[in-house]
């Protein structure tokens, strides 16, 4: 798999609304509160072995990691407009928005 970043800084991305927890034992580094949410790529952070494989001692291909920025109030239906939350998310959890 290529580790060149698919998304550039500023790209609008949606976090997959996926809940692998329902499919059995798994390890996930994408916080539940951003799943299905749309954010903006701040920058690619480099490629790292996929922790979802590492957790099970499987071969872990490197996946591109991004800093993705979200508006904070819509996530919780509370908070102050303009406040944000920035999360490290692996590329396979992101799709174009």
């Amino acid at each position, binding site marked *: 798999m290529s580790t060149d970043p698919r998304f550039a800084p500023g790209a609008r991305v949606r976090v997959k609304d996926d809940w692998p927890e329902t499919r059995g034992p798994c390890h996930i580094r994408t916080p539940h509160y951003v799943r299905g949410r749309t954010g903006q790529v701040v920058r690619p*952070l*480099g490629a790292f072995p996929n922790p979802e494989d590492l957790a099970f001692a499987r071969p872990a291909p490197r996946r591109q990691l991004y800093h993705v920025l979200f508006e904070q109030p819509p996530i919780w239906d509370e908070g102050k407009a303009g*406040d944000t939350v920035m999360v490290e998310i692996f590329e396979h959890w992101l799709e174009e928005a």
Partner: protein
Amino acid sequence: MAAPPSGASLALLEKLVAALSTKGLVTEAEITERQAITDRASPEIGARMVARAWTDPEYYALLMRDGKAAAEAMGASMAGAPELGVLENTPKQHHLVVCTLCSCYPRALLGYPPGWYKSFAYRSRAVREPRAVLAEWGTPMADDVEIRVVDSTADYRWMVLPMRPAGTEGWSAEKLASIITRDALVGVAVPRV
């Protein structure tokens, strides 16, 4: 420091270490070495990094470009440690670091995370109501300052570069470092004169 481990968790830990040793994944010597690195690490190193960044433009540039190299330049042992990212506070933006998934923390640099950083209360509230959390820490934020919560979830560890407070003009780097606390490097506090 972490809460003292209970007897049950110590027994589990011993079993885990034994299993990892049997599989050849880790040795007691490696664990001891890692503990020694964390024991040597201290928020004082982070404080000295910030103070130098405030007073040395070249070091500031290095810190923003390559956190690990900047930490090593101040004597931290960063070999084998995750990447270190630096989050610069400005008059319009304040960073607050949390790890909602577990307790990721720049241990190689700052040492062991404080108990509150690992608590469910901090991890769930910092990301949901950061202004309330900051106010409880005695760090209320003006309405025109963006709070940027940084959820440390993967292969980086994050340190906040606080703003240099007014009234510190002409201070030496040593004196500046004395007002930079661990809590300011996580973002729950700001340096005060």
